[in-house]
């Protein structure tokens, strides 16, 4: 089935008459101790073998997606006068970060069917299997997840944020917040015409901890006992050091 869809997709864009040539301001984001978010600038051109088709304007959609991971969304309700978690939805996979930039209003750049096929919009990027068996209104839970992550700067849909010139050159910048998780951030560029995807380009941005952050993270995962003992040793040394220092100050 999947292969069939793929074949159909191929059929839908048989020519690849227009292709993306892309440049990134950085293809790696290094999370160091003073990491405070990052802004990635994407710039690109559209390569053609034929003159620009004129019937409909070309549009560009850019998405950057963090690693997908399962999350639980819980809902509170009033029970016996207090607010408690009453039900929860386990979402099978939601990107830890997801940003979309488009060159026009959402409705003008992509149609429903191609959005579904390429999982472009934020609700499409969140996959929940068997949601109806878990809660009555899974849509509310998914919307809440999107709302909370949008407020945290983790999800963003920026319409008209891609600057497209003469249907040939485009540029956009995407803001990444400080609370990023590590991983390969899939970056996709779609060229669309009258809502249909006519070309697709994919690359990835490597988000990695470096230096001390890297070392501590690795130690905590690979040698947890050593890490725990080291934490305790630091704590005791700091406690003793402060106590000794304070006594010196007071006596001298």
């Amino acid at each position, binding site marked *: 089935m999947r292969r069939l869809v793929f074949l159909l997709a191929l059929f839908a864009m048989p020519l690849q008459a227009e292709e993306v040539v892309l440049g990134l301001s950085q293809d790696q984001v290094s999370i160091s*101790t003073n990491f405070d978010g990052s802004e990635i600038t994407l710039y690109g051109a559209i390569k053609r073998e034929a003159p620009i088709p004129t019937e409909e304007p070309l549009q560009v959609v850019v998405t950057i997606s963090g690693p997908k*991971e399962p999350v*639980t969304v819980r809902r509170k309700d*009033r029970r016996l006068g207090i607010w*408690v978690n009453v039900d929860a939805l386990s979402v099978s996979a939601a990107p830890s970060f997801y940003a979309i930039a488009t060159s026009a209003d959402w409705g003008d750049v992509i149609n429903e069917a191609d959005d579904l096929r390429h999982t472009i919009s934020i609700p499409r990027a969140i996959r929940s299997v068997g949601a109806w068996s878990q809660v009555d209104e899974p849509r509310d839970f998914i919307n809440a997840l999107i709302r909370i992550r949008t407020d945290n700067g983790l999800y963003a849909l920026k319409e008209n944020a891609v600057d497209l010139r003469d249907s040939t050159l485009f540029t956009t910048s995407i803001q990444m917040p400080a609370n990023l998780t590590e991983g390969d951030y899939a970056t996709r560029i779609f060229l669309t015409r009258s809502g249909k995807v006519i070309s697709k380009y994919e690359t990835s941005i490597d988000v990695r901890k470096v230096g001390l952050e*890297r070392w501590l993270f690795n130690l905590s995962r690979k040698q947890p*006992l050593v*890490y725990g003992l*080291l934490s305790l040793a630091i704590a005791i040394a700091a406690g003793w050091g402060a106590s000794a220092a304070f006594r010196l100050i007071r006596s001298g």
Partner: protein
Amino acid sequence: MIYLPIAEVSVNAFLLLGLGGAVGVLSGMFGVGGGFLMTPLLFFIGIPPAVAVATEANQIVASSFSGVLAHLRRKTVDLKMGVVLLIGGLVGAALGVSVFNYLKSLGQVDLLVKLCYVLFLGIIGGLMFVESLNAIRKTKSGKPQPRKKHNWIHGLPFKMRFRTSGLYISVIPPLIVGVLVGILAAIMGVGGGFIMVPAMIYLLGMPTKVVVGTSLFQIIFVTGFTTLLHATTNYTVDMVLAVLLLVGGVVGAQFGTVIGARLKAEQLRILLAIMVLVVCGKLALDLLIQPSELFSVGAVGGH
């Protein structure tokens, strides 16, 4: 701004130093680890709860160690009593962890932890407040306080002499106190000082002066054990966060110990009572008032 490698968030380093310092002062003054204040504060600034709880345990080790050294020099630590409480505490912590896991399997551990907080903070804070007010009134009117009350506790077997505390009582009550505090500490994710201090004063009849040092002594070991447990099973101890909190914390604890020594016992108790009641009130309000966001997002299996 500083990026925390385990929590995977960026926070203001000076904010963390300040928080550590403020809670450290309280810890030195009252002999509480400060976890019951710091853990909610960490949630508030956006640290994931699991990381906050585990890292807080590590920070408590540091501030308690700093505090206990100051108390040792002043000879206000009852080591013998501390060890008895510790034995009970470790047994209790082990029991508490299994209770915690059982509640977790029921899926409502969050609520029960909060209810535990409200209940215990409310009862302890209220009792202490009333008792200290009475004590202050009595000292003002010039009546001598009845120092030693003989109750059923003094009739139990296995008596032991606790010289520093000036007590000759059975080891059973301190052991039971240790176990109960251990259970609660494990469930509520704190050192348990705020429960143990009143228990030592009112149940065991220990003098307030030695209570603080002894409680800190016991807390070091319980939270040290908790830190190791969290680091090896959940990987949630954030060393960078811990270092920032404890640099502020250990300095604060030293000042706190000095301030604590200058205040009268009744004043110290009434201040602690007020603080406990404030935290209790805040948590109770959170449960009663409709939250602005009914939904919350958590990692799978986390709480």
